[in-house]
């Protein structure tokens, strides 16, 4: 098994090293056969990594504790569905998963574009092969998942109990798909510049291949938030943890790119900015990975300190240098004859939105790096606390929310004052009315909360009006069409635009959840005695008793609490504290009573027994929190609409390319 795993990884490394060498020689000698061979080497690399991954999965399932990565992250007690989490919970396994996704995507994308992007292909293969080679080297020689132990233990150390959660089966792979996926747009951008083919073909490919990892990171982060909410037990879902931030930072720069690429497509502007954003996003993905793997930052889910960090620093340096050199050497290709005419225009709005996204990304990055920088310079570690991040999230996030409403509606090039008033009077009046209503209803305790909810309404009304006006215009063009049919036609004819609106709607829904839990959540520590009812924001909590169930895996202490509303019992909740037998690790099991129609959660954490028979309970009331999970569904819907291939767009691109090729012949 060990030989097969190691051998397969070595073969993957050979194939990955061969790919860029053969591709570049093929490009130099104009030998298409060599370029095809290089492309196939990426597929070969993927096959070898599948075999290596199969070996690791088999070892985990068979409890083969000869492998250090298996012995250290699983045990016979780990429930079967969660065994697979052992694959990526070790440093070595997670790097193998990275390589598996990277080589798979590389093989897929180079196969898909073998005809469409012929001139780009050698460089695309070279960049992707280079990335595969780095990770194949890392898993072969720096952090091998097939390292064996001198003395085979009878059982493994087990999987961290908090990772034995359904969300941990999906959250890490989605984040990997996100991080790794950004290699594709980076490779496309670099290949386009090196080959001098910066026409629309690469842009379309880059946009699509940015959307996929962008969605994966977004959904991965939301699932991670759900895991933190249900597993950690502090009442919230986002703690500005370095690992959470490591995923958020590249997501923000990728979001900036997805907006500014529209300006390039429509107006031929911001080309340098766009390739720089693509490169920056990839570099930030690797920086994020470095932060979580080197021991550079401390977090509840960083990996152990490891020498792999130095290799990551070298890789970051190489990637950043290559990107800067390639962009600087090709600045001529990227110059645009157009300028932004007015600050009140769609292109200017997109530029402001980009500056805010990038500023927010760097503010968060600085917060992540600051503790280590302060330690290096001043000798002591100064932790970055939540208020630092909250400040920037509010100061930069609220204008971003406003722009989400303004951007899609304001005219290209230059908007007149009359045009602006005409487009925004109803959204503005709605937002103002919402703000006034919130103040009257007693929500003025948080000014940022009132502004944020008003802005959410501003964006929602803008989107609603856009859809209504567009549908009416379509009906006017084709009389007799029903409203739903006209709406379907409208969305179908411009999927990207309307898919984008649905994504904005998801952002509004998610933002309401964030505002609800950050500005209006309440909590209290309650001591419950058996039989007595304690009131908490309209809920009656009555301790029925304390139970101590024991299973094969853990010993638990559960507070059994009857929850009532208006004197009527509505539920029985069982918050508990568990101690796992194999690791001795204590965990808290949260009890949640969601109210889907209001979106709020009653959230109870068992915090021990002050006296026998009593229970200390931390109770939280989290308004609107359930909207966050709903936003993930709406986000996926918007993504599906936006990415669905548009045959008219594809036909136009094909016709244009054929015209250009016909002339070349």
């Amino acid at each position, binding site marked *: 098994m060990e030989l*097969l795993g190691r051998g397969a990884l070595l073969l993957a490394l050979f194939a990955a090293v061969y790919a860029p060498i053969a591709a570049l020689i093929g490009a130099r000698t104009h030998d298409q056969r060599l370029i095809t061979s290089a492309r196939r080497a990426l597929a070969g690399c993927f096959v070898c990594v599948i075999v290596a991954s199969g070996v690791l999965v088999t070892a985990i399932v068979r409890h083969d504790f000869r492998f250090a990565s298996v012995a250290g992250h699983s045990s016979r007690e780990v429930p079967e569905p969660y065994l697979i989490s052992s694959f990526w919970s070790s440093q070595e396994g997670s790097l193998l998963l990275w390589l598996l996704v990277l080589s798979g995507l590389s093989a897929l994308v180079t196969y898909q574009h073998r005809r469409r992007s012929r001139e780009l292909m050698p460089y695309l293969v070279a960049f992707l092969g280079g990335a595969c080679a780095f990770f194949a080297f890392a898993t072969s020689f720096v952090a091998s998942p097939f390292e064996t132990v001198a003395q085979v233990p009878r059982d493994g150390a087990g999987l961290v109990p908090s990772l034995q959660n359904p969300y941990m089966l999906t959250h890490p792979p989605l984040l990997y798909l996100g991080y790794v996926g950004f290699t594709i747009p980076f490779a496309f951008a670099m290949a386009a510049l090196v080959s001098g083919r910066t026409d629309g073909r690469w842009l379309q490919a880059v946009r699509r291949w940015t959307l996929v990892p962008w969605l994966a990171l977004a959904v991965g982060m939301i699932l991670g938030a759900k895991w933190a909410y249900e597993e950690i037990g502090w009442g919230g879902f986002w703690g500005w943890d370095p690992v959470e931030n490591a995923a958020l930072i590249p997501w923000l720069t990728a979001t900036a790119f997805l907006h500014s690429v529209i300006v390039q497509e429509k107006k*031929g502007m911001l080309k340098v900015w766009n390739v720089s954003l693509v490169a920056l996003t990839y570099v930030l993905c690797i920086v994020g990975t470095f932060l979580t793997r080197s021991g550079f930052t401390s977090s509840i889910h960083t990996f152990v300190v490891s020498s792999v960090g130095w290799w990551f620093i070298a890789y970051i340096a190489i990637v950043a240098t290559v990107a800067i050199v390639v962009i600087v050497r090709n600045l001529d290709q990227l110059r645009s004859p157009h300028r932004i005419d007015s600050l009140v225009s769609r292109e200017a709005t997109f530029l402001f939105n980009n500056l805010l996204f990038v500023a927010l990304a760097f503010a968060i990055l600085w917060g992540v790096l600051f503790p280590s920088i302060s330690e290096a310079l001043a000798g002591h570690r100064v932790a970055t606390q939540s208020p630092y991040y909250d400040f920037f999230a509010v100061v930069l996030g609220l204008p971003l929310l406003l722009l989400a409403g303004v951007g899609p509606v304001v005219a290209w090039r230059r908007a*007149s004052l*009359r045009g602006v008033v005409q487009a925004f009077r109803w959204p503005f009046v709605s937002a103002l009315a919402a703000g006034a209503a919130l103040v009257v209803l007693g929500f003025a305790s948080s000014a940022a909360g009132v502004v944020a909810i008003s802005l959410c309404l501003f964006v929602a009304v803008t989107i609603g009006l856009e859809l209504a*006006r567009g549908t*009416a*215009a379509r009906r006017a063009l084709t009389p007799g069409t029903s409203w739903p049919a006209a709406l379907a036609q409208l969305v179908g004819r411009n999927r990207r635009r309307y898919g984008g609106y649905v994504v904005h709607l998801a952002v509004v829904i998610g933002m309401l959840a964030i505002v609800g839990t950050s500005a209006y959540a309440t909590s209290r520590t309650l001591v419950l005695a058996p039989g007595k009812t304690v009131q908490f924001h309209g809920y009656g909590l009555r301790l029925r008793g304390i139970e101590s169930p024991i299973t094969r895996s853990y010993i638990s202490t559960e507070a059994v609490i009857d929850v009532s509303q208006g004197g009527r019992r509505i539920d029985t909740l069982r918050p508990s504290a568990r101690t796992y037998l194999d690791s001795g690790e204590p965990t808290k099991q949260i009890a949640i009573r969601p109210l889907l129609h209001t979106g709020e959660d009653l959230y109870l954490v068992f915090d021990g027994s002050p006296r026998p028979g009593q229970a200390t309970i931390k109770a939280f009331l989290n308004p609107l929190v359930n909207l966050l999970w709903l936003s993930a569904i709406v986000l996926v819907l918007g993504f599906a609409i936006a990415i669905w291939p548009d045959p008219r767009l594809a036909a136009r691109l094909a016709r244009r390319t054929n015209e250009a090729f016909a002339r070349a012949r």
Partner: protein
Amino acid sequence: MLAAVIVLLVLAVGVVVLVAWPLVRERGVEASPPDARRLALLERRDAALQALQELELDHQAGKLTDEDAERERRTLRDEAVATLAELEGLEQQP
């Protein structure tokens, strides 16, 4: 152990065949790359025409005042005409 060696050998041979197969075939005829200048102009033409279509829809939907729409229409038309003229000039070159 023996099984692992056999699987590894099969894997290695498979990868070598996959990679080497294109090299043993005859060299194909390479298509000439498209003219970059022409492709850029075609892109500009398509972008201007599409922008004109979207402008009409936005105007009809009441997102633009008549003056804003007229000004933008004029700019886009000028841009499309200039691009088409440049394309024509390129066609006439030997």
